[in-house]
């Protein structure tokens, strides 16, 4: 074999390596759909649950026969990572579904601060976004997210099970402790999954701070973002964590709660082994999975000894954004216009509540959560605290702190001090 042949062979092998390596990095340089007739949407997989997006796509395609909509679905637990990957490569979709506010590394506000999202400009629905939701969907440069649905946190319960146990729905935090101390007739009073992946401790924390820190000062979140206040110095936050500790000590939760998952805790309630569970309206399918013997209901969680101070956490939770790297922003905007126009119809698919209200007199929560409605109508609502935390580690510190309180390994003040110590403001590192 001549040297030249060997050299050519080596170069060919090297070229193959480079080609393989480049192939691994993506390489669709079109970015989303270069064809204006195709709209690419990135969303998470709801695991077989009805998805309003399907109905929206079918309607949009019917109205626009020349347009083809393709959905890239990723498992819910993998979605945040997948979306970041798509946005950092040349695979950005034209439209992406994501969580609103801060909270997670791929939440809308986090992405907008990094300059990765396009402005919706003068879309017709922008003026209808409720004022309290605007911090999750827009900034000084424009509107970067279309809020899809709104969610609330309250107590899930089965009326028959509660009645059988001789327990009444608590109206104040004193009632909560009294119910826990009474023992719940041999059942767990509050089903709580507090393992590492469960969101339930944070849902309870949101309910407690809604009626303490946010009842005292509805602007607490904005002030914390501006570094004008701290968690440790907030009487409301101190009270909320102390109340959590009192609930733990009063035997409100399963003795093994720290090792229980959200799914297991949801089953405890729906199978009648627990009396109540504090959770988000959008987690209803987890409770329904246990095939409850009667219709589930939701009531406000009283996080204050004064019933007048009780607030319900209620905020838009997810929405759609247009990545700047996407290929067809005009088509994406057209789709969102169509979605906004028919949002009431699509919300019926999963019994959700549109984040942009349909109009006067429309329900603001699903039917099973009608007991929350008076609070929402009276404006006795609060945001989800973690949606106003720019650093995702903050959420981890809060969740771990709650578990440590349950284990008796730390005190509320120490948890708050740690949350302050790792705080980083918007755009900081």
């Amino acid at each position, binding site marked *: 074999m001549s040297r030249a042949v*060997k050299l050519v*062979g*080596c170069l060919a*092998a*090297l070229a*193959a*390596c*480079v080609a*393989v*390596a480049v192939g*691994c990095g993506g390489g669709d340089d079109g970015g989303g759909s270069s064809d204006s007739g195709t709209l690419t949407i990135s969303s998470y997989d709801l695991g077989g649950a009805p998805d309003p997006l399907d109905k929206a796509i079918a309607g949009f395609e019917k109205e626009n026969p020349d347009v083809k909509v393709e959905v890239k679905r990723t498992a819910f637990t993998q979605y*945040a*990572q997948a979306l*970041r*990957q798509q*946005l*950092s490569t040349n695979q950005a979709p034209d439209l992406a579904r994501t969580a609103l506010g801060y909270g*997670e*590394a*791929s939440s809308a506000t*986090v*992405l907008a601060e*990094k*300059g*990765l999202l396009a402005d919706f400009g003068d879309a017709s629905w922008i003026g209808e976004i409720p004022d309290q939701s605007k911090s999750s969907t827009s900034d000084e440069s424009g509107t970067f997210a279309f809020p899809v649905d709104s969610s609330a946190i309250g107590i899930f319960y089965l009326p028959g099970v509660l009645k059988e146990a001789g327990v009444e729905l608590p109206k104040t935090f004193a009632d909560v402790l009294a119910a826990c101390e009474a023992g719940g007739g041999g059942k767990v009073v509050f089903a709580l999954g*507090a*393992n*590492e*992946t469960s969101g339930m401790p944070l849902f309870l924390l949101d309910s407690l701070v809604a009626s303490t820190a946010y009842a005292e000062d509805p602007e607490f979140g904005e002030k914390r973002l501006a570094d004008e206040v701290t968690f440790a110095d907030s009487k409301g936050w101190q009270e909320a964590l102390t109340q959590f500790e009192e609930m733990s000590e009063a035997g409100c939760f*399963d*003795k*093994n*709660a*720290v*090792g*229980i998952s959200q799914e*297991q805790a949801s089953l405890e309630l729906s199978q009648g082994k627990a009396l109540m569970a504090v959770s988000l309206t959008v987690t209803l399918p987890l409770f329904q999975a246990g095939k409850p013997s009667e219709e589930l209901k939701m009531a406000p969680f009283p996080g204050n000894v004064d019933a007048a101070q009780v607030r319900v956490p209620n905020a838009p939770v997810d929405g759609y954004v247009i990545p700047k790297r996407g290929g067809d922003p005009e088509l994406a905007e057209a789709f969102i216009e169509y979605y906004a126009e028919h949002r009431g119809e699509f919300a019926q698919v999963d019994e959700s509540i549109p984040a942009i209200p349909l109009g006067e007199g429309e329900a603001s929560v699903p039917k099973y959560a009608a007991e929350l409605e008076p609070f929402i109508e009276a404006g006795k609502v609060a945001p989800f605290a973690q949606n106003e935390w720019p*650093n*995702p*580690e903050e959420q*981890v510190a809060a969740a*771990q*702190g709650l*578990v*440590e309180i349950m*284990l008796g*390994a730390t005190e509320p003040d120490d948890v708050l001090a740690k949350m302050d110590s790792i705080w980083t403001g918007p755009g900081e*590192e």
Partner: protein
Amino acid sequence: MAAGTAPARRAGWVRQRTHPSRRVPWLFAVPAVLICFGLFILPALLGAGYAFTNWDGLTSPRWLGFGNFTEFFGDSESIDVLLHTLEISAAYVVGVNLVGLGLALALERTLKTRGLLRALFFLPAVVSPLVVAFIWKFMLDANGAINEALGAVGLGSLEKPWLGEPTLALISIVVVMIWQFAGYHMLIYSAGLQSLQAELREAAAVDGASPWRRFRDITLPLLKPAMTISVALSTITSLMVFDQVIALTGGGPAGSTETLGTYVYKQAFVNGRYGYSAAVALLLVIGVCAVAFVQFRVARRGTAEAGR
């Protein structure tokens, strides 16, 4: 002068004629080497480069120098993570080697079912660690099979939150790892035992040495090469533990079972701190290499001394 250089040239020519033939095997390896370089070495080097930046996976990285490393060593949480990893590693290395050696010794004697038992003990090692861990999670859960079984036989007082209490959760992870890989280490020790000269042990038995003495003074020193491999492999496995922790506890409760492997994952994919995550991963790789290197050096010295 030309005449003087001619023999040298000829010698050079001769060398050139012999060298190409020696190079042929290396040339065959070139494609594989290039593929390995492109797919493993190059990405690893690029990853190591990100360890010195604040890369968030979305925007352009900014050079931080050793900032990520100083943050790691200055943060009590990351030091806790390091300690959990070392605790798991120490318990696992001791446990899996003791159980593996015990099984190998137990199955050294002639048994009709020896082959079957070896296969059964080895079987868990060929199953994905993630699958094994999920099965164990089902059993160790608060309302899982183990607690249910304890309650059913009247031992309800022994029911524990196996994955919900920090110390128990750490122990549970180690037990699951030992259960899965003891059979693998049994095979390493079995191979070591089969290579021993039977005469030595027989002679000691004839001389009246007790079974313990024979094991301590003959079998164990001669097993050092097998032990070296087994200890090194178990150390590397345990320092890089990820699947079992993610599946069993997710690093909880309250981060009490977080290891370097899960910490790297969470920093990158949950917190979006790819640069910091790469720095911790780099530290992990350096640590694993250093431990493996030291173990092999110590063991080589020991083997040489045993040989003398």
